[in-house]
């Protein structure tokens, strides 16, 4: 029975705990929970953005309309293509850069900074710079034509349905690879030097150290980075938006976020936009759960 008695000190601590997390809870409730609940409510109503009339309850109409729309499934396709297209180069590129940088004795900070610098640019600035590069008379055509010896070929970076998807992927990879390099770098830095030293004493060469020690011990970071890449690439918007504004065809790059934006603002249909947002939310929720799991796994291993 003694065990059931609460420790007054612990109770006091718990009270302080609530006090400290209260701002976070208030912030989360106001800016995350409330919009989520509101989106659920809106998805069952005929809510128009500018209308002052009270929205009418229309049951599953918005859900049926969205889930049976070709446009929506094209957006799911566009988002999936983008995520997968981004994942491989970002994951492998950042891992490779992190391994290269960590193997260097000097100038680590400089290389990290150089790779990270695109990440601090706003997405709009990034897309605007790349619009110039992808202009038919821009650097992208010049570079590729010099490389391939195909003078005067327009690779239609913004015009061709396949190329425009590749262009958005390229911009994203350029912007994000530095950020994930830092994460991998941190993961590599956490590998105990005693393990590496022991392997060296046992006569392991560089390749063996990489494949038998570094990569296996980096697995939790890899899982975390993978999920993070998926989450952030699903939220991509500015590049697709700006490219379309400058004449790129919409369908190939009409990712979910862009479709949500256009449905809400251009079509002013908040009900349908909410359905799409909730669809995206559930995907992100699953990925976030995986992220938490991956993070937990990492801690356990540590």
């Amino acid at each position: 029975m003694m065990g059931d008695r609460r420790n007054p000190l612990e109770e006091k601590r718990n009270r302080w705990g609530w006090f400290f997390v209260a701002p976070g809870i208030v912030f989360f409730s106001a800016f995350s929970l409330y919009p989520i609940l509101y989106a659920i409510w809106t998805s069952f109503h005929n809510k128009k953005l500018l209308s002052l009339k009270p929205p009418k309850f229309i049951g599953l109409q918005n859900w049926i309309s969205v889930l049976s729309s070709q446009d929506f499934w094209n957006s799911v396709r566009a988002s999936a293509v983008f995520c997968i297209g981004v994942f491989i180069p970002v994951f492998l590129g950042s891992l490779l850069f992190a391994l290269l940088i960590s193997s260097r004795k000097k100038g680590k900070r400089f290389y990290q900074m150089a790779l990270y610098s695109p990440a601090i640019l706003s997405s709009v600035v990034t897309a605007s710079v790349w619009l110039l590069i992808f202009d038919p008379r821009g650097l992208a055509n010049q570079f590729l034509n010099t490389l391939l010896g195909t003078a005067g070929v327009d690779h239609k970076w913004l015009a061709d349905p396949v190329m425009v998807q590749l262009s958005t992927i390229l911009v994203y990879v350029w912007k994000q690879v530095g950020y994930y390099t830092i994460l991998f770098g941190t993961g590599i830095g956490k590998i105990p030097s005693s393990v590496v030293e022991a392997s060296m004493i046992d006569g392991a060469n560089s390749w063996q150290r990489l494949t038998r020690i570094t990569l296996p011990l980096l697995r939790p970071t890899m899982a975390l980075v993978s999920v993070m890449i998926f989450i952030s690439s699903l939220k991509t918007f500015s590049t697709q938006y700006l490219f379309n504004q400058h004449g790129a065809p919409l369908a190939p790059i009409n990712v979910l976020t862009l479709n949500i934006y256009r449905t809400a603002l251009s079509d002013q249909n908040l009900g349908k936009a909410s359905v799409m947002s909730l669809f995206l939310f559930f995907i992100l929720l699953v990925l976030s759960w995986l992220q938490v799991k991956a993070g937990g796994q990492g801690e356990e291993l540590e």
Partner: protein
Amino acid sequence: MKKAIALCVLAIAILASVPAQAPVVPGLGSKKITINLWTHEDPNRSVIEKKYIAEFMAANPNITVNYNTYPSNRIFEALTTAFAGKQGPEIFNVSIGNAVSFIDNGRVAPVDYKALGLKGPADLEAMYLPGMLKAVERDGDFYGLPLEITNMCLYVNRKMLKEAGIDPDKDYPKTWEDLISLSEKIVKREGQIITRRGFDFRYDAYTNLFIPMVEQLGGEYVSKDGKKAIIGDEAWLKALQWMKELGPAGKNLGSPTYTAARTAFDKNDNTVAMSFSGLYQEARMKASNPDFYNSKDWMVVPFPQWKDSKKKVTANYSAHYYMVNAQSDKLAQQASWVLVGWMLSHGEEYLDKVAIIQPTKKLIESPIYKSMPYSDVFAKDFENANIVYVGKASARLSTLLSETIQNVMVGGVDPKVALEKLRKSAQEALDSAD
């Protein structure tokens, strides 16, 4: 005697140069009001509007006016977001196709005739050319005052045509077929990359320019009763095929991914020979490249027709109206209408400095309008012009139209497939608009 006459002339000149006093908002007392004004970017217009606002604020020291400009392709989104969050500006302007949803959703206040010194709607209507206020009329009241009415014609670089062996006076493009054939003569490429365009379309104005192409052939965007979308497949397919021919999937003469043709045209740097724009482009050209403006190297010609056009239709005109937020404070609404009335009372200066036309009877008859280069070409085309489609689904339809044309032109989509998709989506948009 001569001296007396000279003195009189001088006195009149001095009096004429003194700016008229901006009106004082009645009943304001010591109350302080802030008016936010959002409008689309136009550097020439901003200069004069800021001047009118400064004069208005000097006459009404308790009123603060914040003047904000947005890119024309972003202002609708900015306004929609702001209004949805109940943070809409007191005064705003947006193209008429997009303004409809603001009016029909009760976001716009009816014109305060008293604040403008008028007796009622009839007085206001009498000031304008017939039909110019129809788009903003609801139940006998008006919900906006026209800032500009724009129809587009074809700007032609005479020098570039001559260099390509084309006589600009006789052989300027009169038909859509001419535009393609002349472009083929002028275009220069390095491989597939265009370095000089003969002509390029205006890709932000499909409802102004593409819809008349369809209408010339007997097709329709939306039926007269507003219930059916995309009528006359033959006409639509021919117009879409023409766009495809122009683009990279066709004869590779132009593309929306190149710099906007009208901007390149003004530079006169041998990159674009022909582009569509409104009379206002003259002011922009004058500001950005006065040498070219003052030269005889450019001209404006009427909107092209098809060789087998069924009826003459010129470019649809678009309209921008200054509107006042119905959710703002009543006194702020009144003050806003006074300010709008004050700004728009300078129609001649808007025309002179910005080359935009307020469709008032007074302005159209004024010597300054008649003296603008090629204003007669614009005026003649205007006689056969219709307003861009204005309906409850106009914003959505405009988006769908852009998507369709861009998919055909640069996305390689077959015009028939694109048309079917457009018909289905446009009909859905019309059916679901309430």
